[in-house]
């Protein structure tokens, strides 16, 4: 069924030329020379006062990366990236590392103000109706400020930039870094391991429920730079944390590379909720410029009955290559993936998830909604696998997509692999099948068919949006208030 006018209008509102965060800020920057070499890696490491083992780890990754080939299996097309034509390090001159808010360059603060990111604790405290969020603000290659650190410390929660964590909690970082996404995992993750500049580190100790939402806000500002951040979140036994991630970049004609690695570790009975609203600059109407978003995100449900949940709203980036995954290792662990991916203009999205069932009685749920408009390509690529010992593994997958216009493409590529006879996998990509009962229920009560479909689908999208923490849900709803009435695979 074709898209209704309402949907078309809403998608137009978030079309690529409506990008609101495209402004550029002139800030004096300290940049590494262009290119990638051992010397550059040494420079990054020394700029960050890293321990010796970290430098070795980086160099090891670099030598590995040189032997690797760029992956070509994804359904995205782009000119070859010259990895030597990038700055691998760019930091505002005035801040050599995260300091107290008073010392941060006011120009930088204005950037975040413009983006609507609250960095001033008192302001946030003053707002009665707003709940509090601790923010780690990453500007190009460095974290400029982390808020609410003291208050979190009282609860025992460690929330700081990863470079700071490497100095202050080297044992924790060393114990967990690279254990979910190994150094040589894939081309971009390996590159990230060699050159990552900053990112957030979270450790929630045993039995602690993190008292507020944690959030990192990424901003690419400098020209010709790549942003390589690394996030590591550990929820110890029985802990809970909800983490949000947001990102924007200026409007530029050339493409910029963003290759991040996110590692989540949930121990026994712990729960991590990770939400992203990805709004990198998508390029202009002609497909010029925009961010290449090549990201490796993976969660490891290491402990018994642990839970990791990914929620993403993808609207930005020229190219997205991203598969937030869950390794369900602990018995009774649970993985969830909720995604809404909107592509417009010349955007290309190849995104999905992996649910790897290793432990007994593990379960996972995948809900993915793709919306393609303009001349964009939107691919869902997902893998669900149950290993020999994964008794009673359960998965439910639903991925629907909607095409608006006849010059875009929507594709679904699921991989379903079962090696245990007690595994129960259900994968479906039709809306009609799941909503027939509901539709009948509505029709029974005199609601006309079209209204009934809109009602059901809206309710469903809300369900995905509800997975987002409140603060992000508002933003996400602004980005997509779309009804998904006629869905195809």
């Amino acid at each position: 069924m074709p898209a209704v006018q309402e949907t078309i209008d809403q998608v137009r509102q978030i079309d690529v030329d409506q990008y609101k965060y495209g402004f550029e800020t002139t800030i004096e920057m300290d940049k590494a020379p262009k290119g990638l070499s051992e010397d550059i890696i040494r420079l990054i490491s020394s700029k960050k006062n890293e321990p010796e083992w970290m430098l070795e780890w980086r160099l090891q990754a670099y030598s590995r990366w040189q032997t690797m080939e760029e992956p070509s299996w994804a359904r995205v097309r782009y000119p070859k990236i010259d990895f030597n034509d990038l700055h691998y390090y760019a930091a505002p001159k005035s801040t050599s590392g995260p300091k107290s808010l008073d010392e941060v360059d006011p120009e930088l603060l204005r950037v975040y103000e413009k983006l609507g990111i609250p960095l001033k604790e008192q302001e946030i405290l003053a707002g009665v109706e707003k709940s509090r969020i601790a923010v780690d603000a990453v500007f190009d290659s460095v974290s400029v400020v982390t808020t609410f650190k003291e208050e979190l410390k009282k609860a025992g929660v460690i929330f700081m930039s990863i470079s700071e964590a490497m100095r202050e909690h080297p044992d924790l970082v060393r114990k967990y870094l690279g254990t979910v996404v190994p150094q040589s995992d894939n081309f971009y993750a390996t590159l990230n391991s060699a050159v990552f500049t900053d990112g957030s580190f979270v450790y929630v100790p045993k039995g602690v429920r993190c008292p507020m939402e944690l959030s990192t806000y990424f901003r690419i500002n400098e020209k010709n730079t790549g942003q390589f951040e690394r996030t590591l979140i550990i929820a110890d036994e029985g802990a809970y944390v909800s983490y949000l991630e947001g990102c924007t970049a200026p409007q530029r004609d050339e493409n910029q590379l963003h290759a991040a690695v996110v590692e989540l570790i949930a121990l026994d009975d712990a729960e991590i909720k990770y939400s992203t609203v990805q709004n990198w600059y998508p390029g202009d109407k002609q497909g010029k410029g925009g961010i290449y978003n090549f990201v490796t995100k993976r969660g490891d449900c290491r402990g018994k009955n642990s839970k990791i949940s990914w929620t993403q709203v993808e609207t930005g980036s020229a190219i997205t290559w991203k598969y937030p995954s869950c390794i369900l290792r602990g018995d009774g662990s649970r993985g969830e993936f909720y995604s809404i991916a909107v592509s417009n203009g010349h955007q290309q999205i190849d995104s999905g998830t992996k649910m790897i069932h290793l432990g007994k009685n593990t379960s996972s749920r995948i809900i993915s909604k793709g919306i393609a408009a303009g001349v964009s390509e939107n691919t869902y690529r997902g893998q669900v696998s149950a290993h020999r010992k994964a008794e009673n593994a359960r998965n439910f997958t639903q991925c629907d997509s909607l095409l608006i216009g006849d010059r875009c493409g929507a594709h679904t590529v699921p991989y379903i692999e079962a090696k245990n006879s007690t595994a129960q996998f259900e994968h479906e990509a039709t809306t009609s099948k799941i909503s027939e009962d509901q539709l009948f229920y509505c029709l029974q009560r005199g609601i006309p068919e079209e209204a009934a479909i809109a009602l059901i689908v809206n309710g469903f999208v809300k369900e995905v949006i509800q997975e987002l923490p409140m603060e992000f849900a508002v933003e996400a709803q602004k980005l997509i208030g779309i009804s998904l009435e006629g869905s195809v695979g």
Partner: protein
Amino acid sequence: MNMQQAIKMTAAETALVDAYTAQIGDLPGDGAVLSLRDTLVHELKTSGLPTRRVEAWHYTDLRTLLRAVPAADPTAFAERVDPLVPGSSVLSVRNGQADIKNVPEQLTVRSYTESLLDGSAAAGLSVLGADDAIGRINGGLVRGGLEIAVAAGVEIEAPVEIQVVQSHGQAHTRFPVSFGAGAKATVIERHLSTNAEQSFVSSVSDVTLAEGADVIWIILQQQGPADTHLGQIRFDLGKDAKLHLFVINAGGKLVRQELHGRATGEGADLTLRGINLLGGESHTDLTFTLSHDVPHTTSSEIIRNVVFDRAKGVFQGKILVAQDAQKTDAKMSCNTLLLSDDADFSAKPELEIFADDVQCGHGATVIDIDHTQLFYLLARGIPENKARAMLVNAFVAEIVEELEDDEDLVESLESVISAWLEKHA
């Protein structure tokens, strides 16, 4: 051209290339056919058999799985067997040799060897793409087969059985079959072996349906437990053509059955039903692609898999909807009963859609026997093994019953399924 790095050939690759070299001068074909064969075998030599790195072969790493290829034996002899459905007309190819005696009047049949010799086969001998390993092996080595034509308006009552019988060794066969406008027929393409000796069979059927043709095409693969079967059917559906394609895999050690089709005429309709009965140490792969090229075409696919023992099963299904193909309606589902912890099954149901006003969907499940159903039967005093067998049988037999118009056919297929299940359950 890409310079391929020289690879170390596996025993099977060497055997295939050697089989070609040994037959040079003996393989039928005119100049064009022979030079095409040369190219295909050269490609096989330089790029080798596909590995899991080739996306279309992701779950069937032919290079690793195909350990050996038995040599061709020109003296091999195989008996003609009774048709599956009594009263069918039988056209047979035994150990690669076409037998065109007793051809029913309504068919025009000639030996494919003749088409190779006079060059008329050249056009159809090319591969479907770089990943078409079956087309490459078959095109390089094919010696015989049948070229069949059903004239426009002809309706054939009794099923036509194309019987491909192999005793041992290797055989490569091809079946270009065309149905004229409004033609109606049921064809059973049946692959079987007469003993447990190892054989290697590649077979390509090239089926075209003209406007309004209505065809039931059944592929019944019952090779021996040591056999390798590489099958491919290519089909093209014209305006308002209707193809009911039915695939049953119930044999073989290493099996890849590919189904590649295009709906090129408005109103074309494909119904695909597949049953994979997998047991022992076998590896069976059913790979399907359908391209909806024009508006108003429909397709429906249901695949049912039953996996016992240490068997491995694969289903790859891909539906493509071209930009012009508005109002396409395509539904694909793949259901698997995994009955052993040592068995595994992988499914990859893909959709590639470029038109916005379409209805496409796919569903895939991997499940165990429904415990409530089992309980229902147990509560009625049916012993567990019998109850399980009943449920497994019902799971696959359900789709055979769709062929209700032809009772004999349904009965014959059901007995093949029951016999297989009795042997394996």
